[in-house]
């Protein structure tokens, strides 16, 4: 039987390589265009923030200067920026993994508290040799966060229960239980503030200021831990079978099942890993930022983790970049509020405007469309 298609294949040979070149060129161009456009949108967002301040009749130039250069003016602020970015990156990554499996987990908040609680309990009560004193609490935090992640994970994967509801409800429960344990059982005796006893010095995450001999506020080696975790998450998603399963399940669960992947288990793993990362974020807060437990210790970070994950398009590198950008703006906002006449409400408004504009990806799209049209001619 002679293949009647031989000539077709041959005929396709030439345009094939040309198509390939075009594909690669387009891909390169897309990356460049996306990057440029992201920078541009941030610039536009800042410009609009400028106008917002101007509208309130305050010294817009000074305010903008504080927002944009403030975080770099003093090393403690740099430290605050890095410490904030560490927590935010971990939270962003924790959200990004279930998102990649197309699971909208909003459970980071509860997992943060679970992680903080577990790590602090270990770090306050157990006497451990030096390195283990840090690693064991971290492990406990990851376990606690992961276990908490497993609850909505199993509910979703095995029963089909909506994960948004499950995670939101679980957050509410965990935060209340945390408050209860803290006020009624863990409050340090003799302290008039509601806070736990401090963690043992061995368990506190070593401060970066001790290494670099400059004051860096609470920035600690958690930063490097976070970078390692981000690299690991990248590796997990891009280079391991489990990561592949997560990606495929997120893209088309029917296809995943057809292809022989265990979809429920993959979904559960995505929740568990996400939970573990949020638990680590909690440990970073407990062992690195507060040195113990406090009520409301996550502040608004858990929700901002979602913003960071989506800004970074659920890509580990993107998430870290987005977290750095976002926490830079958080610190800049605080500097602006401290140094200028712009009030904390206006700072909130400006941050909201920036978030909204940076997510509005129309500008890059419009430019891309324009480029495509020009090329087509």
């Amino acid at each position, binding site marked *: 039987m002679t293949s009647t298609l031989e000539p077709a294949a041959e005929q396709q040979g030439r345009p094939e390589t040309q198509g390939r070149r075009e594909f690669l060129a387009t891909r390169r161009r897309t990356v460049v265009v996306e990057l440029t456009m992201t920078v541009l949108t941030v610039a536009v967002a800042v410009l609009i923030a400028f106008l917002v301040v101007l509208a309130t009749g305050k010294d817009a130039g000074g305010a903008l200067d504080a927002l944009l250069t403030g975080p770099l003016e003093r090393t403690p602020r740099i430290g605050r920026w890095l410490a904030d970015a560490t927590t935010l990156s971990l939270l962003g990554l924790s959200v990004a993994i279930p998102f990649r499996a197309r699971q909208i987990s909003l459970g980071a908040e509860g997992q943060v508290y679970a992680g903080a609680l577990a790590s602090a309990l270990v770090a306050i009560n157990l006497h451990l040799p030096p390195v283990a004193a840090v690693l064991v609490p971290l492990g406990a935090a990851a376990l606690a966060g992961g276990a908490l992640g497993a609850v909505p994970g199993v509910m979703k994967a095995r029963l089909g229960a909506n994960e948004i509801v499950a995670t939101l409800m679980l957050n509410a*429960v965990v935060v209340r239980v945390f408050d209860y344990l803290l006020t009624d059982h863990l409050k340090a005796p003799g302290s008039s503030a509601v806070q736990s006893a401090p963690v043992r010095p061995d368990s506190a995450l070593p401060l970066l200021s001790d290494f670099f001999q400059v004051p860096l506020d609470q920035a600690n080696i958690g930063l490097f831990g976070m970078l390692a975790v981000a690299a690991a998450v990248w590796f997990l998603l891009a280079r391991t079978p489990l990561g592949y399963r997560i990606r495929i399940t997120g893209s088309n669960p029917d296809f995943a099942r057809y292809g022989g992947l265990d979809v429920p288990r993959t979904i559960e793993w995505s929740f568990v890993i996400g939970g573990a990362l949020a638990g680590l974020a909690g440990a970073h807060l407990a062992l690195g930022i507060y040195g113990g437990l406090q009520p409301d210790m996550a502040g608004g970070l858990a929700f901002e983790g979602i913003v960071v994950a*989506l800004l970074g398009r659920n890509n580990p590198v993107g998430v870290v970049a987005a977290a750095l950008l976002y926490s830079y703006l958080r610190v800049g906002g605080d500097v602006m509020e401290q140094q200028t006449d712009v009030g904390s409400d206006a700072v909130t408004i400006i941050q909201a405007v920036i978030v909204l504009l940076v997510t*509005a990806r129309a500008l890059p799209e419009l430019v891309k469309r324009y480029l495509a049209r020009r090329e087509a001619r």
Partner: protein
Amino acid sequence: MGPVLDVVLSTGFLAAILGVSTPYVLAALGGLLAERAGVPNIALEGSMLSAACTGALVAGYSGSVWAGAVCGIAAGALLALLLGVLHLYLGADAIIAGIGLNLLAAGATSYTVFALLGDKGGTSRLHSGALPSVRLPLIEDIPGVGAVLSGQNVLTWAALAATPVVAWLLYRTRFGFHLRAVGEHPEAARSVGIHVHRVQFRALALSGALAGAAGVFLSMGAVSFFVTGMTAGRGYIALAAVFLGALRPCGVFLAALGFGTAEALAVQLGNLDVPSQLVSAIPYVFTLLALAFFAWRRRRASRTDAAPAPLAGPAVLESP
């Protein structure tokens, strides 16, 4: 426990449930409309907050509670439309845009209140009044029922009426028809000439208006002034009710009512000698159990009947 039981079985408690549930029902129905149109509306909280603030301010300055209510509802709708612009036209992710808008509403309400009244806490120094309660002359006298139904705020009545209205809108009207089509299969809707974005915008406006009504209820019904952040996370609870109610008006209503009941119950149980934090966790534990139970039952039901697999899953939040 005895006295608590008495209270729980009292008409006052039933009346309280309706009051407590009102914002949940209204906002959840709003969330439902947006979700069914294919746009997850995380900005319910922001819509509620801006409506609560606008309503109290306008009522206070104009002297008319009705003007306040209308402007409040409009403010809620406006915020949702902003979500529409960002998500539908500017390609923003609906979830981040929603979170961003909630942030914006928090900052802007507090800023406005301070700019106008010089008070960061709220508008309690302004006489803004509340929307009237509805007395039901005849029903009022029926023992039991009368005390529950009569004297409820107009917006509580609106919430009760909203459920059948939303159901009617979704299932009986052309608009609802298009809305569901757009949410379920936007391509199909577009291919028959339905303006997908236009329908989604209208759905969002309604969604925001309903959430706005919920906010107006808080500042002009439950109490008669605005306090910064007074929605206190109710928008997120409403969002949970949307999904717990399986995206159906009746289910969403029952879920919202369930949250209201649980909260009212927690208020009553608060006097018992149980740690307050644990008592306030009860509604959420209850929701989790209900969620698991219903999901389990649905799953078991779908195992046994041999209907062919659906073409597409139910409309859930779009993929991130």
